[in-house]
Each structure stands twice: as C-alpha cells, then as structure tokens.
C-alpha cells in the first residue's frame, strides 16, 4: 500500500472537526483522482498526508511507514525523499532559475545527488522545456512552463508518491491536456503513485480510480 489513512481526525484547535476519515487507501502505483470542492478540506488533507500538519488523531501510513508517529523533523525528511508535490500555482521560487528550482528537491532529502544539475537538466529535456529558459528566473517563465518545472522537481528524487493539488487550474485548455499527458506518462515511467486533487471531474478520465472527498470525509456531513 502506498497510502493508508485509518481513523484520521483533524481539526484546527478549538474549531469543528474538519476531517474525519475512517479508512482510505491508495495502492502502490495507483493513480487516484480525488474530487473535492474548494473549502472541502482537500488542501488540509494533502498537508496531513505530506506531513506538514500533524493529525489530531488517527494513523497515516505512507509506503509502510507510520508517519504520524514521526516527529516533525523526521516527517520533513521523509517528505523530501519520498513525496513529490505540485501546487496549483506559485510552484517556483520567483527569483531562482528553473534549474535551481528543481535542485530545491536535492536540498533536503537524505540521499543528496552529487550530479544534481545534470539530473535537473535531463528532466527539463524530458519535459521538453527549451534550454533557453533553463537559466531564467522562475518569474519570467510562462505558467505552462512553470508547471512543467514543477513536475520536474516533483520527480527529481524519483519519489514513490506524487501529490498534485489542482495543478491545471491556472492553465488554458491546450496546456492542460499537455500537462495531464506528461504527468501521467512520467508517473508510469517512474512507477510513482499519484494522488491528483481537483474540483473538476472532467479531468478524471485516465485515472485508475476516482474518489469524492465528501464521500470519504464524515466530518461536516
């Protein structure tokens, strides 16, 4: 199993329970589309899985490791090495160039790659980013290019789990299709598990499974 959530409860202190998930699983190599409206707690759920937020109670098992039992520092390390994350937008540090933005993935993992720059450039090539923009600061890349650099960074450590949070919502139709194709292909190539979160059910084709967050989450029901 890649992801197992068991009796997961989360609330920001003194607020109502935001998430209450009795069990949710994602098998290794599976591509899951998780559909949720904005404000349904999906970003919170992703922050919990990524280990940025600690769960109020319950178990989170990633790649057979009980991450809820790790301390914050260990969770940060675990995330750096095993999870690739793609945001909706603002995926790049605006003043660092594309290569350096990818190399951020090499900064915090336990196994630092020595030939990081070569690896980053290889990924940029795979993602068909013209080499004229490799050394440009992130803020001067188009949104489509930025999202492709984000995929490159997410894949840098060949993580077994990739989480994408509405990564296409800032893209136009043409770029959206290109992005989805690339992401799917590369997840196959790297045999990564993919959790793809979106409010837009039209993106759900090509996934192994579609879950609706409102069905999984018993809080607020």
């Amino acid at each position: 199993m890649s992801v197992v959530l068991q009796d997961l409860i989360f609330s920001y202190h003194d607020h109502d329970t935001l998430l209450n998930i009795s069990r949710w699983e994602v098998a290794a190599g599976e591509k899951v589309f998780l559909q949720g409206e904005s404000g349904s707690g999906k970003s919170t759920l992703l922050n919990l899985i990524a280990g940025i937020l600690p769960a109020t109670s319950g178990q989170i098992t990633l790649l057979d490791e009980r991450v809820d039992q790790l301390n914050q520092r260990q969770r940060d390390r675990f995330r750096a090495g095993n999870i690739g994350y793609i945001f909706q937008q603002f995926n790049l540090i605006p003043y660092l160039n594309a290569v350096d933005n990818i190399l951020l993935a090499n900064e915090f993992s336990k196994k630092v790659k020595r030939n990081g720059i070569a690896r980053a450039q290889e990924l940029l090539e795979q993602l068909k980013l013209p080499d004229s923009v490799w050394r440009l600061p992130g803020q001067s890349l188009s949104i489509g290019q930025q999202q492709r650099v984000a995929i490159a960074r997410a894949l840098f450590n060949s993580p077994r789990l990739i989480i994408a949070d509405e990564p296409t919502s800032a893209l136009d139709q043409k770029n959206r299709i290109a992005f989805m194709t690339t992401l799917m292909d590369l997840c196959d190539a790297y045999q990564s598990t993919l959790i793809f979160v979106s409010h837009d059910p039209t993106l759900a084709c090509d996934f192994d499974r579609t879950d609706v967050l409102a069905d999984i989450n018993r809080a607020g029901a």
Partner: protein
Amino acid sequence: MFLKIAYKSLVDRKTSVVMTLLALIVSISVLISVEHIRVQTKESFASTVSGADLIIGARTGSLNLLLYSVFRVGAPTNNISWSTYEDISASDEIKWSIPFSLGDSHKGYRVLGTNQDYFRYFSYGAKHPLVFADGREFSDAFEVVLGSAVARELGYSPGSEILLSHGISSADFNLHKGSPFTVTGILEPTGTPVDQTVHVSLQGLKAIHNSAQYTGDPESITAFMVALKSRIGVFSLQRTVNNYKAEPVMAILPGVALSELWQMMGILEQTLRFIGVLVLLSALLGLSAMLLSSVRERRHEIQLLRMAGASPFYLFLLSELEVLLITLAGLCASLLFVWLAFALGQGYLAGAFGINISADIFTLNTLVLSLIVAGSASLTGALPALAMYIRARRP
C-alpha cells in the same frame, strides 16, 4: 543553495534592501568613527609628551595650560618672566627644563620659541626623542627648524628663506617685515603637534618683534617643561611652584591634567556613544521591519520550501542569514567609507586640531564593535525570523 536562496531573495527585493543598507551604513559609520576618534584622540594626546614631569606656566586652569603649551590649542593667557624661569629651573632637583614661547605663526602654523634643550630633551610617545630628517638644529637667531608637516605642506627644505609674522592668523597683513629666517633643519614625523610647529630660538622670536634688538635673554616666556632627577620630588616641587611668591605661576602634572580632560570628555563620549547606539538600533529595527513586512508576500515561497522538505527552523535561519548578509555588506561598506574619510581628512584634523587620527581603523576595537553590530543585528533579526518560522509551521 542556502546562501544562494538568501542572496537571490535579497537581490530580488533590491530597492528596499538598498534603502535599508544605506541606513545601516550611516549608523555603523557613525558608531565606528566615534569609537575610533575617541580611542585615537586619547592615544594622540597621551603620546604628545613623555618624560616631562611638570609643566609650569602663568596661573590659569590646568587644562588651559596643558592645551596651549603642549597641544598648541587656544591662546596663552599670560606670560611668565624669564627670571622666574631661571629661578625655578636652577633648583637642584631638576634634571632638565625646556622653555616655550608661543603666540606667533607662519602661514597658519604656530611658531614656538625655545632653545637647544628642546631637541636634546623633548620626547614623545614611548620616550622617542626628536630626530632630524634633514639638516641640524638652529644655532642663530635667524635660523628655524620645521616640523615634518610644515615642511611637507609648504614645500620647504634646508636653505629655504621664510618670513615670520606676529599673531596667529595666516593673513599676511601684520607680517614683521625684514626678518627673513633660514631653514636649517626638518624633523622626522612624530604624529604629534611638533609636526605642525615652526621652531625658532628665543632670540629669533625677539627678532620677529624687533629686528634690531634680539640678543640676550627674552623678558618672558609662555611656559616651560621640567623633568626631575627623582620623580619622588614631583609633588613637593609642584607645591613650591604653586606657592611661588614673586609671580603667580602654577605647575601641572601632564598625566593628571590629561585625565581631567578625559573626565570632562567622558560625558561627551558617553553621549556620542549613546547616540551612535540609538542610530544603529533604529537602523536595525528598520531592517527587521522591512523583512517582517515581506514575510506575508513570501508565503508561497515558504510553503514551497516546506513541501520540498525544509524544516521551519530552516526558514528561521534563512531569514537570519539575510539579516547577516545585509549587515555584513553594511559593515564592509562602512569600514571602507570611514577608512577613506579618515585617510582624506587626516591632514585637516592634524592641521586644525593638532590631533593625529590614524586612518588605520582595522583594530581589535573595531573588530569587537563589528561583532557587536552583527550580534545585535541577529538579535533584532530574530523577530522576522520568528515570523517566518511561525508561518512555516502553520500553512
């Protein structure tokens, strides 16, 4: 990468960073200059005279006597008669004495009337005697020995003929006509007011005022320095001089008068220091405010670094590193600026105030000061760093 992120993020915000940096440079420069001047003035003053046990002159404030006799600052209030000088310096306890007669100038440089004992006994700093760079001491009324700065600034060399004027203004209207002096010697630089002084014999000084009648002893002198055979007798001689019946005179111990000067300057020093610290504090708070206000706009950056695996503490350190980079840049620029300012202003300070300030600001004292600046910068920088940390913990 850590350093790269910090550096590039600062470059990305260059407008506000440069403004903050300027504020920092101004404040650090003030602090370093005040501290440097303070230390150097003390050193310069303390090294001006050594070996003399007492300075004796007309009754006035002890500081006043010290300032005009040794530092050529201010004007002598009154002279003492030659007979008093002869009487006191004839005392058995006295090893040597040097008469000083002041009140005239040459192109803005003070003229000192004295005798050959000056070149024999006068010493400065760690008991360095005066050494001739060129030529010899004066032996005639119309011969003159120049301090190194006078010779350098006015382009004189042994053999040059100069005119000396009465009074201490550099204007030429009350020039004593018809008494040309010949330069016979130039002294090595000493870093004391000696460098700014034109030395003539007491007879030469008489000649400036009356070129026809200059032989024999002068009627009066401004002050004189004495050294005793045994320093134990200093206080008893001082008492004797202070009770001298024929004329109101006083004797001061240069060291004691200097410490009186420091005491007087102490409040001023502390005030300047305090203002320097306040200016620095306000610049550092400005730096922190600048960084604090940018924490909000950096939330995506923080989120991104967190997802890549950065701990909240990494973001705390990142913010602190940015503070240190700015402070370091500020320190380097300030040191360069102050060094340049002193290197260029040195001559003016020496000429106008008789104080020798070395441009060499790279002392242990400056290092300590720089460390204090860096330390307080990291302290005030902890505030925006903490804001980064908190934002990193709670997405």
